[in-house]
């Protein structure tokens, strides 16, 4: 009997769907903060706790929980652990796995195991590292010990606009190469800027082909100096305008457009496929050229809003689902783009996870020996493959997985 764990159900890859039926276990009522341990800068929470609720609970003492997926107002920490979620500020602070110190897990055989813990240097295999991002295929997480970070002294948000997306891509690479690691470094393209301006009133420059949103944090002196250098790099790369948020309200407005981008796209098209592939940062200019060519070749509009600083693309391939031909073209463009990213040394997913959406794509990235290793690891936790079957790993009859996920009536990649 398949068991499907579910947090808030905000995942983008069908991870909390039940394609084979079975029992869904909702963790959303397990939402207590069990312990906040300020001297050790960590907290232990139940998996259903909402991501932002933890930061709100510790903010008065100057702390925060770093992983900040766009869904953080509604997504659960258990879900963040399952997908190894990322977010705009993961460029500097790392993704979820870098902030999980320990978990309590009920495995597919019903055993309760504790992996990791508060103390550093735990001897033995790093099973915690393997379990974070395992998308419920090892078991159900029942408690999570997370790292808390102290909020930075100063924050500076800069918006730089460019007349060409390639100039913006080169500025991204130049900023990082200069030794500046911004807290966040996001890029939006022309189509997305238009959608955001119409949909949210964030007031991004109208005539720009690309916008960079650069956020620096740290000690004031460092933030000031790095802000000036980052601005200079943008000017050198032909920026149209470099705007520094003057106060908290302006900062919030600059971010508002970014955070509400996915909704604003409704202004452009009724439906979209969302891609989450990653390329090495230095390949950004090349992949943006390729992306434009792919869009033209398949006659689809592609809007871009993504974590440029770590090369994590989020192209939104727009289509109208009332026209089946459009969907086919969008799917073809999606597939081609994914392959282009892998060829440049990238990965199939940066932060959304694999789920049902990308299981079939894993062989693009991993050799058979690598995948067989993953099957064997999964079997150690869940020998009968009852935990969230059909997710993460492609069905593999040779390995005796014993299931073949039914194809749902939802186009691949269409999770929004």
């Amino acid at each position, binding site marked *: 009997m398949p068991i499907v764990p579910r947090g808030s159900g905000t995942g983008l890859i069908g991870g909390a769907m039940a394609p084979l039926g079975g029992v869904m276990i909702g963790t959303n009522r397990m939402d207590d903060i069990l312990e906040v341990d300020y001297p050790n800068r960590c907290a232990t929470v139940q998996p259903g706790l909402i991501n932002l609720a933890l930061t709100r609970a510790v903010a008065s003492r100057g702390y925060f929980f770093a992983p900040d997926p766009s869904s953080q107002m509604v997504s659960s920490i258990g879900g963040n652990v399952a997908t190894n979620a990322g977010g705009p500020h993961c460029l500097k602070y*790392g993704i979820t796995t*870098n902030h999980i110190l320990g978990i309590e897990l009920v495995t597919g055989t019903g055993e309760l195991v504790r992996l990791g813990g508060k103390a550093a*240097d735990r001897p033995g295999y*790093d099973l915690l590292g393997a379990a974070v991002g395992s998308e419920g295929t090892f078991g159900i997480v029942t408690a999570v010990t997370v790292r808390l*970070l102290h909020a930075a002294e100063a924050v500076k948000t800069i918006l730089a606009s460019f007349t060409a997306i390639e100039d913006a891509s080169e500025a991204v690479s130049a900023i990082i*190469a200069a030794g500046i690691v911004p807290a966040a470094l996001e890029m939006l393209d022309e189509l997305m800027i238009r959608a955001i301006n119409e949909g949210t009133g964030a007031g991004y420059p109208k005539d720009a082909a690309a916008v960079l949103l650069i956020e620096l944090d740290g000690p004031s002196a460092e933030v000031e100096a790095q802000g000036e250098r980052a601005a200079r790099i943008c000017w050198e790369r032909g920026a149209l305008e470099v705007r520094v948020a003057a106060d908290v309200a302006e900062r919030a407005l600059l971010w508002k457009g970014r955070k509400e981008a996915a909704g604003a796209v409704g202004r452009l098209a009724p439906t979209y496929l969302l891609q989450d592939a990653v390329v*090495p940062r230095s390949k950004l200019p090349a992949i943006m050229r390729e992306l434009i060519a792919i869009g033209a070749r398949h006659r689809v509009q592609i809007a871009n809003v993504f974590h440029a600083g770590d090369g*994590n693309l989020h192209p939104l391939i727009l289509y109208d689902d009332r026209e089946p031909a459009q969907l086919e073209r969008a799917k073809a463009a999606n597939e081609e783009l994914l392959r282009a990213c892998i060829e440049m040394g990238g990965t199939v997913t*940066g932060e959304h996870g694999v789920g049902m959406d990308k299981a079939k794509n894993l062989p693009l990235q991993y050799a058979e020996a*690598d995948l067989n290793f993953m099957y064997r690891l999964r079997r150690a936790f869940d020998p009968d493959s009852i935990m969230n079957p059909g997710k993460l790993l492609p069905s593999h009859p040779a390995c005796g997985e014993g299931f073949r996920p039914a194809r749902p009536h939802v186009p691949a990649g269409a999770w929004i």
Partner: protein
Amino acid sequence: MSVAARSIGEAFVAIAGRDRVRDDADSLAAAAIDGLEPRWIVRPASIDQLGRVLALACDGRLAVIPRGAGTSLQLGNPPARVDVVLDLAGLDQVIEYNPDDLTITVQAGITAGALGAVLAPHRQWLTLDPPGVAARTIGGIAATNASGPLRADTAPRATCCSGCASCRPTASQPGADRRS
């Protein structure tokens, strides 16, 4: 030495070449771990050789202990047995380095000192600082999860190691890695 042992030794020679397989008394004594001497010291020159050495050891049920700089072999329990010391010092190449990406891919046998010398002209550095770091190999640092005083500052940042490829005793081809 039995016939079987001699033929295994010759098989190692066939894979790695005569100058990369040692079984003389002095070398074996020098390679002893907690007083336990190996039967061979093999120093592969390529990943392909490494895979074939491990496959052979697996077939012969030989106990293999990988060695980087050999600085930490005395840690932990004494080994129950050791047949082959797998010396990784011959695998010390930089595979890919693009300074703008802030990542570098190296083979396991490169020392942290040699790696630092590659990074320094680009004003980059490895934040790992276990005791005696310059002489230690990256593979050894990873195997022992070694760290130093700087981890208090750098630990909360994104991790230092973003992926690795490894040879398994039963597989001759290392697979793809994850790099992002």
